């Protein structure tokens, strides 16, 4: 298969970037999108040109490192799935494919398609953890978790922190990410002691990073590779309102 690529090239954060056209020829339909980029890069290197910089790690959809906006969709056309799980057979032969980075102010561009998503880590650092005594694992039945609650916590914990929610959101809001991280611990007994302070701190951190605000378009859940439901944002709103009331009451 042959494709015409239009790839965002930007030397460094300060230089102005632009879309540059490349030809991707003799591409196997069974290559992943990232493997196709690898082939394009090998040919660029052979010609003595600078290869296209992009993020990837596990290449099996579980790490959340790849961060491409392919033809205007975060992670490309194959939802749910990360960009590394998109195969070239998904595109029409000789199609033009536009490749851009995840765009949001809190995701500063480093080079080409690589952005710094440290903002998401800092939201988690603000409260997305539990304070537990370290040491050997406790006896399994010492803290009982109903199956139903465990399932709901697991659904939220599936978030791989890729940032596609913020990239796809018309407002560059990271509420789906924050909602997943807050809900995951709020569903579990281990998360209860810090439940009130956690949501307040994480939402404050999210706002301080400069993400936009949710307008309930649900574009985030459409691109989420972990299929996190936007109904968790309703849970986040609920948790935040209750936590604010509790803080008002001095609890």
């Amino acid at each position, binding site marked *: 298969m042959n494709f015409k690529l239009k790839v*965002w090239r930007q030397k460094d954060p300060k230089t102005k970037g632009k*879309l540059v056209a490349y030809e991707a020829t003799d591409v196997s339909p069974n290559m992943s999108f990232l493997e196709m980029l690898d082939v394009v890069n090998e040919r660029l290197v052979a010609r003595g040109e600078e290869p296209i910089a992009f*993020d990837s790690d596990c290449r099996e959809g579980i790490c*959340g490192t790849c961060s491409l906006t392919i*033809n205007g*969709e975060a992670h490309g056309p194959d939802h749910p799935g990360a960009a590394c799980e998109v195969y070239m057979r998904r595109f029409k032969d000789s199609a033009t494919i*536009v490749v*851009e980075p995840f*765009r*949001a*102010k809190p995701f500063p*561009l480093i080079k080409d398609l*690589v952005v*710094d*998503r*440290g903002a*998401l*880590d*800092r939201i988690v*650092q603000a409260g997305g953890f539990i304070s537990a005594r370290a040491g050997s694992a406790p006896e399994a039945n010492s803290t009982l978790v109903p199956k139903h609650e465990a399932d709901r916590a697991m659904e939220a914990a599936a978030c791989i*922190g890729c940032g596609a929610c913020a990239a*796809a959101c*018309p*407002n*560059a*809001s990271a509420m789906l990410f924050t909602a997943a991280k807050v809900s995951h611990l709020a569903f579990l007994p281990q998360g209860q002691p810090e439940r009130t302070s956690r949501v*307040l*701190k994480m*939402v*404050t*951190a999210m*706002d*301080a990073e*400069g*993400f*936009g*605000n*949710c*307008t*309930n*378009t*649900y*574009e985030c*859940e459409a*691109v989420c590779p972990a299929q996190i*439901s*936007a*109904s968790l*944002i*309703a*849970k*986040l*709103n*609920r*948790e935040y*309102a209750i936590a*604010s009331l509790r*803080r*008002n009451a*001095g609890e």
Partner: protein
Amino acid sequence: MLDSTRSTSNLSYPAAEGWNLKPVTAFSSFCRSSIGKKFIVAATGVVLILFVVGHLLGNLQIFLGPDWVNGYAEHLRELGPLLWVIRAFLLVNVLLHIYFTISLAIENRRARPVSYKKKDYIKATFASRYMAMSGLIVLAFILYHLAHFTVRVTDPRFLLLKADPLNRYDVYSMMVYGFQNIFVSGFYILGMFLLALHLSHGTSSFFQSLGLNDKKLTPRLATAGRVFAWLIFIGYTSIPVAVLLHLVKPAQQL
């Protein structure tokens, strides 16, 4: 992902620093937060939706005859000071709704300084993406509508209308004469179309913003919200349409 400790020290998180905030500060920090602002927009939106429903029920009495509409208008006038309290309450809601929406919209713009060259939307509806646009046009319509029927400055004929047999304002004839103008009716129908568009997203959206939603309810509320919005549209536009088709005629001749 990369270099996660890069600028932690440069950012200050108020909640992390001052956990034991005084109640006033805690409330103001709620109102300044992304979720707090959404809450206010949603809560004021609910009030405005209730007004839209109530106003429609009042207007639809035109199909029951002049006695009903004129009597209804007279009842509202008899409320006296209470009417002004209600008007002030609605005005405060409108102002809060607009102020916080604009504040959110400005933040949203700033959150993506470099836009995509190509952007596709998969799930976001037209209505959900153009809420500010539909809202501002509805606001322009409301201002005209108030000048037209409440302050009565746009149509000199309204001053010629005599009181009805029970010595009440002849609101019925005022509505009929007002809507007989094709441009007035046209702008009215356009205003109602944008209101319906606004409500087709807003009616289900407030459940989400107020945290009253869950996975099962979301799709049902989305459908119900759309049905509600277009019923409102049909209800309101039925009046100018009926007037233009001469199905409703004025109670007095000018």
